[in-house]
């Protein structure tokens, strides 16, 4: 048996002098593997992410879509927004189906049954798939180190099924499975599963990173780094959902920045060579969590104590990244310095837009 060597792609990293800044890079790839015309909501964070991700990957790419918004809202029979091969798989099969595609290409190229450079194999799993039902399948794919990129488009809930709580739904987040009421004033009582760190800690040979649609160049570069990494890569991307978060649709990218500026979504990379985290990403500003919360109807019920709890959580995230906290943020972790969300004028305004 004479095995044929598998040729792999190497994608260039986009120039990004200050990744946390607000700027537009005109040198984006022209390729559009994910075209408009699908049925996602206006302002859909996951589909903005999808376009950027597939643009960064280019045309020699295979996309895998476990059940979720990016399955149901994107494709409908005899209509497809994908210019590259795409396959649906079950919601719990994100990592496993992807592993099958990767293994098939390894074997087929090696055995001379398929000729060409190894394709980019990208799985787009929602946070329900990635943090709950498909967690083991993704861990399996990362552990076995198939050459693929698994993306968790994190809209912090099961949105496709009508907004239900997932393991990624934040503390205080209202969903139809975690509604607020006299017995549960804060709605969601549990804090989100620290999924990306779990993946980095458990699979240290993988490239693991977090990103947000608020920073598209950073996102696209992380996609390319993940694809260039020989072996498995995992990327968790903040992708707001206007329907579930209840905000004005033009503000998706704003939220993508605010969530980072408030410290609720730490942006980092895990370097599998050095075996360490890279916390060098810095947003332009640091803000109290209330500035992020007040734009979203899902937090409109929160009391001062709940906001203080979230500020405490955000402060811990900053500290974990080695950031020194300004006095204002330390103050904001004390309930007596805060006002109820329900009393905030902004929350009422936003809630009325729904």
């Amino acid at each position: 048996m004479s095995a044929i060597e598998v040729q792999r792609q190497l994608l260039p990293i986009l120039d990004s002098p200050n990744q946390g800044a607000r700027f537009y890079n005109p040198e984006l790839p022209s390729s559009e593997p994910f075209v408009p015309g699908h049925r996602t909501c206006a302002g859909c964070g996951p589909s903005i992410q999808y376009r950027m991700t597939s643009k960064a990957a280019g045309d020699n790419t295979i996309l895998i879509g476990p059940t979720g918004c990016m399955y149901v809202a994107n494709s409908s029979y005899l209509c497809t927004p994908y210019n590259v091969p795409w396959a649906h798989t079950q919601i719990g099969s994100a990592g496993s189906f992807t592993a099958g595609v990767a293994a098939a290409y390894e074997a087929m190229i090696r055995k001379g049954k398929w000729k060409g450079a190894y394709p980019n194999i990208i799985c787009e799993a929602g946070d329900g798939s990635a943090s709950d039902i498909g967690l083991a399948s993704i861990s399996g794919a990362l552990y076995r180190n198939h050459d693929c990129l698994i993306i968790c488009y994190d809209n912090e809930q099961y949105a496709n099924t009508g907004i239900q709580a997932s393991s990624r739904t934040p503390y205080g987040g209202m969903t139809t499975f975690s509604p607020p009421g006299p017995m549960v004033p804060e709605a969601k009582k549990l804090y989100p599963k620290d999924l990306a760190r779990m993946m980095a800690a458990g699979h240290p040979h993988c490239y693991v990173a977090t990103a947000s649609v608020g920073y598209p160049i950073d996102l696209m570069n992380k996609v390319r780094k993940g694809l260039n990494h020989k072996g498995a890569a995992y990327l968790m991307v903040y992708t707001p959902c206007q329907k579930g978060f209840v905000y004005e649709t033009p503000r998706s990218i704003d939220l993508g920045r605010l969530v980072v500026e408030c410290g609720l979504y730490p942006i980092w990379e895990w370097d599998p060579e050095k075996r360490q985290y890279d916390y060098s990403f810095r947003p332009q500003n640091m803000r109290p969590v209330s500035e992020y919360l007040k734009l979203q109807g899902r937090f409109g019920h929160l009391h001062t104590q709940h906001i203080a709890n979230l500020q405490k959580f955000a402060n811990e995230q900053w500290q974990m990244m080695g950031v020194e906290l300004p006095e204002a943020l330390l103050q904001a972790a004390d309930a007596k310095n805060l006002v109820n969300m329900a009393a905030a004028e902004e929350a009422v305004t936003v809630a009325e837009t729904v």
Partner: protein
Amino acid sequence: MATVTESKKRTVRINGCVASAQAAKYADVDVITAYPIRPYTATMMALAQMVANGELDAEYIVADSEHSQLSIAHGAASSGARVFTGSSGVGVQFAYELYSPISGSRMPVQMMIADRTLDPPGDFGSEHTDALSTRDMGWLMGWACDAQEAFDNHLMAYRIGEDPRVLLPQMVCQDGFFVSHITSDVELPDPGQVNEFLPPYKHPYPLDPRHPVSHGPQIMPEQGPPLQLERARAMEDSMAVIEEVHDEFANIFGRRYDPWVEEFMTDGADVVFFMQGGHAVTARFAIQHMRDRGVKVGLVRLRTIRPYPTDRVQEVLSKFKVVGVIETNMGLGSVSSGGVLYAEACAALYESQQRPLVVSFMAGMGGEAIVLKEFYWMTEKMTEAQKRGKIEKRTHWVGFEE
């Protein structure tokens, strides 16, 4: 007529599990995905060693569950690779979600089943309930009764399932332990014979960046029925292909199987057993013994249960006075309060002008061997029914009655 090269043909003494592994090797599979559960595990152990030895070039993936195993198989087959997987017992059930998506996407994944009783409680013994519970999911399915037949069924199943007129997954089943762990002589063919019989896998619409396709987009309710009808027709159309492939197999390898039912000593028989799998080997012995004593008993062994050979079953079983269905499976609360084979046998016979009496025997349950005296006992029940012109009751739990 095929030219048979005898040079590398050899006979080895192996069990059913190893015979299945050998078949996967001869089929030059590209992706293998394993997860341990007794008794089928031995197949994957054998394949792991073949890959480690360099005898077989394949990606060998140890999955994190049976659900993942089948998803990996689905992804790999969707990309154009020939895939081999397998399971037993509750493992078959753990993967249940994937059976319909795989057949619905028309991916000819092959799955080896060494069957096992379902929990509770944990029981290693063989019973056909695991695979039979998936029988309506669009997979071709049938039981082998010995290691040679298992080997042969694997090769034929790939050829049938991958045929562009069929494109359906296949469950190639054998009884746990009675076949999977009992060694017997198996003739391994010359690789040239296999090359002649089994062309390389070529799915018409794989996930290939040079020819982008979308697999499995969401549908509107009215778009569902045409797809389901197509899958149902593929199952029906496979029947002609199955017959064709069995003929060609006989021509190339020299072993001829009836694709649907094996008849054993049915000439002049009044009463027959109707059953699947490895217990048929004991049945043959028991029948020979009873024939020597003048009892007109025979055996009809079902070789393919999906697609169900309705016309053939009707034609064959109508020749007899009494049919005793040996279930080796559980159909709790089913039409006979016994197993699931009874209902289909009766349904196949319904339009017959000469309907035999049909009785169901719950035997071989939990991995118990069906011993000779039980075959004699069941034959007696059938003979009594023949004399009476009426069955005593629909279902007998063998070993629990006088």
